[in-house]
């Protein structure tokens, strides 16, 4: 379970990235985190993996108080919470296989176990035939699928995806969504930050909307309510 208890995050110059957010996400949920750029979506996710500390309030992940977690123990939290980054964050001098295997090497798994598990996950994301390719030899969609494979290979109970379809065309975006749905089916909690109107509206999952750091809605079968003056722009984003 994930819980934000009156969480605020202010940056220098009194810029408020999150303001008094209180929310609870149960195990096994699929949640969309939506809102315009600068709404606080990435801050929300970064607080969950202790990539930053809240200015006020408390963040809980399962039985851990993330806010007071000692620095040397943060890696234990990050092993439980897998993260997919919009900019992929792949090691460019390692192959697809090696990038994914990294998620198990850090756990000290044997090379035989690593090979079996990595190949299973590469099959799941459809990259088994690209195992020996380097990131620079991949398309953006393939890089994102590598990032997803690395995030799930260690079997995290929670998966955070920060705009995983942000740079991808509609067909590839749906492929990524299919993978995330598969991961969700096996009981993983999935939180996906997105701009993509079409995906949010088609999937009808729980949707938490943020605006200027404030939580403006939390709906069980939510929709992306696009403000009238930016409708054209959002539709474009949704179809990109």
């Amino acid at each position, binding site marked *: 379970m994930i819980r934000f208890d009156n969480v605020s995050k202010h940056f220098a110059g009194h810029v408020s990235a999150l303001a008094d957010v209180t929310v609870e996400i149960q195990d096994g949920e699929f949640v969309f985190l939506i809102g315009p750029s600068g709404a606080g979506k990435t801050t929300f996710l970064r607080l969950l*993996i202790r*990539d930053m500390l809240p200015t006020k309030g408390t963040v809980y992940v399962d039985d851990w108080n993330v806010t007071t977690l000692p*620095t*040397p123990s*943060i*890696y*234990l*939290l*990050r*092993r439980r919470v*897998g*993260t997919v*980054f919009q900019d992929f*964050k*792949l*090691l460019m001098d390692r192959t697809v296989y090696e990038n994914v295997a*990294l*998620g198990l090497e*850090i*756990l000290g798994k044997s090379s035989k176990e690593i090979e079996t598990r990595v190949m299973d996950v590469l099959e799941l994301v459809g990259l088994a035939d690209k195992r020996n390719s380097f990131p620079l030899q991949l398309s953006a969609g393939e890089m994102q699928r590598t990032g997803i494979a*690395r*995030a799930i290979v*260690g079997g995290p109970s929670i998966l955070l995806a920060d705009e995983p379809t942000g740079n991808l065309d509609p067909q590839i975006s749906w492929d990524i969504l299919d993978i995330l749905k598969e991961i969700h089916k096996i009981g993983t909690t999935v939180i996906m930050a997105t701009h993509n109107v079409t995906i949010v509206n088609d999937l009808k999952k729980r949707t938490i909307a943020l605006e200027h750091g404030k939580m403006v809605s939390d709906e069980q079968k939510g929709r992306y309510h696009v403000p009238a003056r930016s409708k054209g722009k959002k539709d474009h984003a949704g179809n990109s």
Partner: protein
Amino acid sequence: MRRSPYQSMAAVLTMFLTMLLTGLFFLATAGSSLVLQYFESKPQITVFFTNKAAAGDADALKKTLEATGKVASVKFVSKDDALAIYREQNKSDPLLLEMVTADILPASLEVSAMDPNFLHELEPIIKEGQGVEEVVFQKDVVDTLLRWTNAIRLVGSLLVGLLALDSILIVMTVIGMKIAIKKEEIEILTLVGASPWYVRLPFVLEGGLYGTIGAFFSWIIITGLVVWLRPMVLGFLGIIPAVQILLVNPLSGIFLLSLVAFLGLLSAIGFILGSLGSFVALSRYLKF
């Protein structure tokens, strides 16, 4: 290392110089300690008699000394005994054996006092003895050696200390630079849940490896020097049993074992120094 060979080479070279000096200093200290131990184990006073001294002179002096009640032991070494000792010490050099006969070696008395403080009371009695040519006090020899040994230790310690500090700083700089180069990789590793030690260990091992490689090359140089200088050292210090046993045969088990142990010691010191440099860099540049 292959990505920044020049920086790695600088670190290895500095480590090599440090370990070379550490090794040489260690050998000099160990050698001087052996020499000191040898002289300290010798009788405190050696009384040499002239060739013209009568046979009874040594015996008379021995009785006089024993009568004082201040000597622990007095041993007479005749000319023949002196020749036997000389032959034993130089058995590996036939040329030296041919040149010496019992006639040119003096007879002597080896005296040990019950207490070192009695030495100055025994000195006038010995010097007044009939047929006495020369009196050698081991204390003087030991004191001179001790002064030299202490000087070697002081200068050596200072130099090794300075070079060790230099090595740590160089390794720290090189590892710090590598941390900066791998900043993105480190960030990714920490985000996917790598433990602090998973991230740090390769840097610690790299620093340690610089030290170990430097130590290995310095060991090769020192081993070459020892083998090259072995006959000369044996000529000077062959009378010391430990030196004789160690150096007499360069293929003996004890000599080879000592070399391996010396390599282990140098490698361990090099590894610790290099790792220390890495630790300093990690604590400075990685804040997690």
